[in-house]
């Protein structure tokens, strides 16, 4: 019997108000939008064994370092020369120790080379290591038609169908590939302006600016918005690009607990009451930085609460929708649409084109004055090379497809299929007994594995069954919470998902990964799959 005593689950109910822009007058139809997030904790022995495992491998790490220092073993990794031995040591910090002794042993699970389009299925190149992962050798064979559960391909726009890419090919013939200039000098093409207008229309804001790189959109624009004397309130689990941008700006940074509105309110009140650290003058600007979907947790930001807090304390809101634009919301417009909020409530909307649009780059959108200011004051807008023409055309065609402007309903079908896939996959995983983090609507699904041995064995076992998964361990996640992260796609068919679920079930039993202690009502048993169905190869074909 399973008990629910050790479970932490938060159910948040959001009220969705239809239609009104300014919120006055009675809402015509109130629908209750339930966003349920759960972060179940594993039983105590799991944490104990995880620490024990790390401790043992660390001990063996010290032993191997000793052997290397004495000379009994050849050192494959960088070490100081004899002349440098009297100076400050270079390779003794924890990060280098960890890389040498823990990461190198198992690094065949990361950076696997692929040799095809990263669509719903792809080809992985086979490689072997004769010396326990210090060096690799490609055998020349590929593992064909591995199901791709790791690419950020939410709407399936990473495709190479010639019909869909006709306009992109035309642009290559018209403009070539490199722009050879910045937007400010000679690189401002007509399609760039067309894209910016389309992005503004897509998001429902006044104006938008596009940049060539998503990471650089955050790290170079935040210094243009805030500076010394301003305060940034950043969520605990924000992405590195946001943290880098905040640090580069020189503003004071305070962190609040992940998605926790009480913590945010407390920090806001303290900031407004006490002002700047020594002088107690009021802050010039207070900016709250959050993300739409946090990719390591799969959680969705509590946007209505944050907007209410921002209005109460007169702060600004910077929303990074890298993973949520195109992937959530009834028509793929992101978290503002998911909660039924007005996009002009958010001061700075930022997003990337890498995930749902199958291209590269980022955008910043908001009021016209803001975007005009950023065009001349942001580092990447002034100095970075302009976006390449075929990439711009890919974003244009993808966005028109989602909005339905190309006359077809392909875009809407894909958005709905992603939502269905998400619901199906999440509910089946929870029924099987795995611990899943995050909101029921997010297409990013972290599956908790906890122990380092199991993380590695899981990745290898799934690759043997021709499913490619991404596993994440210590520096990117807390030390006891290693996980596998699934990114669903609208291009995944139900057969592919069923095969992945079947394999997950078997691997979960084999490795004892089903830690969940919740009780679920059993679904009616689906017809059992024959092995013939599941050994079917999933060929790459266009949608």
């Amino acid at each position, binding site marked *: 019997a399973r008990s629910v005593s050790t479970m932490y689950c938060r159910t948040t109910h959001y009220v969705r108000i239809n239609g009104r822009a300014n919120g006055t007058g009675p809402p015509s139809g109130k629908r209750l939008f339930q966003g349920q997030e759960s972060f179940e904790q594993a039983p105590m022995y799991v944490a104990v*064994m995880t620490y*024990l495992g790390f401790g*043992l*491998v660390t001990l*063996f790490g010290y032993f191997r370092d000793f052997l290397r220092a004495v000379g009994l073993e050849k050192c494959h990794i960088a070490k100081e020369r004899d002349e440098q031995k009297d100076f400050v040591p270079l390779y003794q910090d924890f990060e280098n120790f960890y890389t040498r002794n823990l990461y190198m*042993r*198992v690094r065949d699970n990361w950076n696997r080379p692929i040799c095809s389009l990263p669509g719903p299925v792809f080809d992985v190149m086979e490689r072997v290591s004769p010396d326990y992962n210090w060096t690799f050798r490609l055998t020349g064979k590929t593992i064909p038609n591995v199901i791709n559960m790791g690419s950020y391909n939410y709407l399936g726009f990473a495709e190479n169908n010639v019909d869909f890419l006709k306009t992109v090919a035309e642009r290559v013939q018209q403009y070539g590939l490199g722009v050879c200039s910045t937007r400010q000098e000679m690189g401002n093409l007509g399609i760039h302006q067309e894209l910016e207008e389309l992005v503004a229309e897509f998001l429902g804001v006044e104006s938008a600016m596009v940049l060539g790189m998503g990471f650089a959109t955050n790290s170079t624009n935040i210094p243009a918005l805030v500076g010394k004397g301003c305060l940034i309130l950043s969520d605990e689990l924000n992405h590195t690009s946001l943290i880098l941008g905040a640090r580069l700006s020189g503003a004071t940074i305070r962190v609040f607990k992940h998605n926790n509105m009480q913590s945010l309110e407390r920090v806001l009140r303290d900031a407004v009451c006490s002002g700047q650290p020594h002088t107690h003058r009021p802050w010039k600007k207070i900016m709250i930085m959050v993300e739409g979907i946090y990719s390591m947790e799969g959680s969705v930001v509590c946007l209505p609460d944050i907007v209410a807090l921002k209005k109460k304390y007169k702060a600004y809101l910077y929303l990074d929708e890298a993973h949520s634009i195109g992937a959530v919301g009834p028509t793929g417009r992101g978290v503002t649409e998911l909660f039924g909020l007005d996009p002009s409530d958010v001061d700075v909307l930022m997003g990337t084109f890498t995930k749902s649009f199958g291209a590269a780059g980022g955008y910043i959108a908001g009021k016209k004055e803001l975007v005009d200011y950023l065009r001349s004051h942001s580092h990447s807008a002034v100095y970075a090379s302009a976006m390449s023409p075929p990439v711009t055309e890919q974003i244009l065609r993808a966005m028109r497809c989602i909005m339905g402007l190309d006359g077809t309903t392909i875009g809407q079908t894909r958005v709905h299929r992603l939502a269905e896939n998400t619901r199906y996959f999440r509910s089946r995983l929870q029924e099987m007994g795995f611990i899943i983090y995050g909101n029921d609507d997010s297409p990013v699904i972290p599956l908790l594995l906890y122990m380092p*041995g*199991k993380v590695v064995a899981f990745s290898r076992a799934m690759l043997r069954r021709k499913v490619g998964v991404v596993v994440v361990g210590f520096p990117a996640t807390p030390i006891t919470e290693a996980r596998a992260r699934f990114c669903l796609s609208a291009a995944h068919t139900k057969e592919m998902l069923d095969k992945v679920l079947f394999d997950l079930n078997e691997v979960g039993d084999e490795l004892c990964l089903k830690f969940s202690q919740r009780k679920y009502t059993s679904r009616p048993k689906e017809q059992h799959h024959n092995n013939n169905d599941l050994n079917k190869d999933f060929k790459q074909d266009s949608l």
Partner: protein
Amino acid sequence: MDFKNVKEYLGWLYYQYLLITSIYVLEPWEQSIFNSVLFSILAMVVYTSYMVVPVHVHLALEVFSGICGEQPESTMALMN
């Protein structure tokens, strides 16, 4: 999971032990070192408990029976 024989089941148990203690990520000779160290520690524990525990239990039982045996005798002496 269906196991054809006991050997397969024992192999699976050994695999679980490797995974849980994270010895799975080590090279085979390191696994042998760890297994031999663990086995010798467990053997020493078993041997020590075999030597020590029966003697101590016997002594402890004697002490307790001594206390319980004395009480009724002393009260009888007082009454007489």
